């Protein structure tokens, strides 16, 4: 991208102004360069290469051949892709709102002056820093259909015939979603906590004077004031949900059957396992476009709301 530095932006040139622009460009780049070198070499170039591969036929050995849109055509007719897309949407539809609600709820509960509140906050955050490998083992055992604590608890409170969780096609995805909500809620809770603390106290006092109850205060003040936070949380959650892989791999491996097969896993399977790097890059490109579109839409909605 060095070319960008040699070409000043097309502003009518007053000489000192031009020199200043030059200087700023140099300074700016000098700050960015150390990180950018590593980033460009180890992330940007591979990403561009991968997207180029989406239009090629390459089995990891020999020379890639131009394939045009063949990979995308194949994608359209591939049932695995449709299953994985559905599952990914299912996961996102569960993970995004539930994590949002859980983290908001936690933040509301923990946003008060209390002794030991820091302990409670830390505890809520703890799942997020626990290793995924460990998390997956623990939850798989908790979800064990016959001897697992989750089902023992359900039976104890009178649920007849509790779900078989990871060993049933209907309940495997809910099990994964529950685990992921448990893991992520602490992180987003922290963001919400910060958001809550920026709301001026006077708003609530004024509302109380007007006779608003707790619910009205929540809907009327808290929620609207938290919009920037909610927006950020939503964007991060969306990106994260669509990219989900590690948790699925260690928890269910995509099974039983294809009931938890997600797009990122299909990318991995077609690419690494089957060695069809062109096709797998095509899936990745589609996945990227989906995430990108959703994110752009979220930005647009947010902008429009800000405008009104």
């Amino acid at each position, binding site marked *: 991208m060095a070319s960008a530095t040699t070409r000043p932006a097309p502003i009518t040139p007053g000489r000192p102004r031009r020199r200043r622009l030059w200087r700023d460009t140099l300074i700016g780049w000098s700050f*960015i360069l*150390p990180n950018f070198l590593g980033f460009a070499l180890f992330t940007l*170039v591979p990403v561009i290469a991968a997207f180029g591969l989406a239009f090629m036929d390459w089995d990891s050995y020999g020379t890639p051949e131009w394939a045009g849109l063949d990979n995308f055509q194949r994608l359209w007719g591939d049932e695995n892709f449709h299953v994985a897309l559905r599952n990914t949407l299912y996961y996102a539809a569960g993970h995004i709102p539930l994590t949002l609600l859980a983290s908001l709820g936690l933040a509301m509960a923990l946003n008060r002056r209390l002794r030991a509140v820091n302990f409670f906050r830390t505890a809520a955050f*703890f799942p997020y820093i626990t*290793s*995924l490998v460990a998390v997956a083992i623990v939850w798989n055992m908790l979800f064990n259909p016959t001897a697992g604590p989750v089902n023992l608890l359900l039976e104890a409170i009178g649920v007849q015939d509790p779900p078989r969780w990871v060993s049933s096609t209907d309940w495997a995805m809910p099990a994964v979603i529950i685990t992921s909500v448990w893991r992520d809620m602490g992180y987003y809770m922290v963001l919400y906590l910060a958001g809550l603390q920026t709301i001026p106290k006077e708003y609530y006092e004024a509302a109380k004077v007007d006779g608003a109850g707790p619910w009205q205060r929540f809907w009327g003040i808290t929620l609207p004031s938290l919009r920037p936070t909610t927006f*950020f949380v939503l964007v991060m959650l969306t990106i994260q949900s669509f990219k989900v892989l590690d948790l699925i791999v260690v928890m269910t491996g995509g099974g039983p059957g294809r009931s938890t097969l997600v797009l990122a896993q299909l990318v991995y399977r077609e690419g690494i396992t089957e060695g069809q790097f062109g096709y797998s890059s095509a899936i990745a490109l589609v996945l990227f476009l989906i995430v990108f579109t959703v994110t752009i839409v979220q930005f647009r909605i947010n902008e429009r709301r800000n405008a009104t």
Partner: protein
Amino acid sequence: MTALHDPPADTRRPPRHAAPTDPAGSRHPRARRTLTYAGLTAMTSLTLMPLAWMLSASLKRDAEVLAIPIQWIPDELRWSNFVEIWQRIPLATYLGNSLFLSLTITFLQVLTGSFAAYGFAKVRFPGRDALFLGYLATIAVPWQAYMVPQYIMMQRAELTDTHWSIILLQAFGAFGVFLMRQYYMSIPDELCEAAKIDGLSDYGIYRRIMLPLSKPALASLALLTFVNTWNDYMGPFIYLTSNELWTVQLGLRSFIGQYEAEYAMIMTGAVLSVLPILVLFLFGQRYFIQGIATSGLKG
């Protein structure tokens, strides 16, 4: 994308300004407080239950782990599990490798990330925003999509199966730049302008003003990077082949694969793999929560 650098004005207030919103129903303060504590305790124990189960299982015999009914505190606490595991796998090597990688990557990421973030937040030059967009966009690309080109590059450079590969891959992540930039955006430009009038160069501003001001954000970036590197499985799995280079996560996963039914020992390994992170977190917790809170918010 305007929202990225135009956060609504009211979110810029420092957190101290606002008081916690206690919906003060002050008619029965004591009863209310007890109720609150009870609720919070219940919620927290639910959250911590899986981790408690992990700890409890690590102190049992294999056969007791899945026994019904669950015994949360086993009759006989088998601390010997924690001794035995060191003999079963070279855990010290794994821990050492993980520690080395996490520290190096964290250091590089924090250094280059905050440096670049200053360029993105406080220096104006053509192409800056487009470049930043490029950084952002890569966050949305699933890693396994470009894993193979990346691997091939590393292989050409003969860096696979060395710690270098992991360091180079993870030290220059876009996330750190993003996080730090968001934080720097919240520091008023007037502060920099004033410093410039006083004769400070941009590098001086970065070192004398930005770095000290951004301590919480630096701390949170450091912690997040450390935790992510420590917990990463796929990266080391693909790049590190020689067993003496393995990290804790690889060691743990391999242990599970080889000794599938030794539940207690697996849980012992899991506890030990979490312990360093827990200690680190308890120490850095105060900065950490403050740090993410202030920088993450400015989305």
